[in-house]
């Protein structure tokens, strides 16, 4: 859909191709897929946890099932 060729369309393949370097950066930065769930907040609060009071560029929740699974692992469910 994009007519801007400098943007590659297959994002997940690009990410997989750089798995090792990106995993290293993730470890360095401390970013995880769902920090909000870890703090008992709705996953949608992820953006707020990065110190942002204006998170409306990113309006979606993760699946509640994912949170429930994490809660079960914590024994809090």
């Amino acid at each position, binding site marked *: 859909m994009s007519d801007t060729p400098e943007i*590659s369309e297959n994002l997940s393949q690009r990410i997989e191709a750089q798995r090792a370097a990106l995993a290293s950066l993730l470890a360095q930065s401390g970013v995880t897929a769902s920090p909000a769930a870890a703090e008992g907040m709705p996953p949608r609060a992820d953006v707020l946890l990065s*110190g942002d009071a*204006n*998170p409306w560029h990113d309006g979606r*929740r993760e*699946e509640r099932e*994912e949170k429930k699974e994490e809660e079960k692992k914590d024994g809090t469910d």
Partner: protein
Amino acid sequence: MTELARTASVVFLQPTTLCNLDCSYCYLPDRAAHRRMSVAVADAVARGVAAWSLLHPVRVVWHGGEPLALGTPGFTELIGRFGSAGGRVTHAVQTNATLIDDAWCEVFNRHRISVNVSLDGPRRANGARTTRAGRESFELALRGIAALRGHGIPFGAIAVVEDPDPAVAAELYDWFVALGCHSLGVNIVERKGVHAGSQVDGEGVTAFWAALATHWRSDQRLRVREFDHALRHVSATLAGTADRRALAPHDPMPMIGWDGEVTVLGPDLAGFSSRRHGPFTVGNVKDAELVDLVRRAPQASWVAEIVRGFAACRATCGHFSYCLGGRPANKYFETGRFDATETAYCRNSKKRLMEGLLRSVGHT
């Protein structure tokens, strides 16, 4: 599939339409008018927030206009209507910082308000941020930030970048590190709302993100909101959960205007209307409970069109699990419709951002 969650974990409030600044890129209408939220409206919102807080924590974001233009007595009267629900209701304020003084710092501390300031970097980057008299606001903002620092109040920052020049990316980052904020959001200037000015859209934006990412990777003293968000998607992709996450419903993120009108899916549609849909509202908290208005929001024609737009993005875009369907306001103001797909916002603030980050990592 449900496209909108029935409860909200983030609620935006517009305590006043007024802003004491007149930034040239601002999208907000009526920001020269001082229309104030009533206690009755705040009470109605507080009831909804209290109901949702029984299910999960809720963040109340005091947005604008400039929320501090209300003055401390007016602001504390409104925020005082909200219970804390044992810490499950928290507050944040998005401010231009120019009105912050000791009295405001005491309010922030008393109500445990997270503070986020809007500032575009060094003085020369703030030319768009002028007072209503046309004077620069830079020193006023620095004075307010000095007050925050004097009171030991942590704060984040959001910068609008009008000229995403790779040569200034590192300087921008370093300037915010020196300012003392804990996090930085970077908004590439957008054409939306009442701002119909120029919009960047090209390879240079990718180069800017790549330069910023390279500098950030070497010095991670600040969290950068956009990189956090991109890396959360990277993390989910590497864990094999990204597609599953993308099936989850959108948080409705209601915005309650000064008069009680409720907009959903972002504050940047509040106060606008179209010939086809009428006002972009799902009702007024003075007429119905906020929880009911949000639950019934998908029945509004413009919200239904937004949901169709999400579906179109899902069906056609390889970045969907990352951007999750784009921003409705950008779709509307760029194309005239909510069921459009790619926008300049998508390219600049999602696709080119990720591309820049991946290029930066690839060049290690």
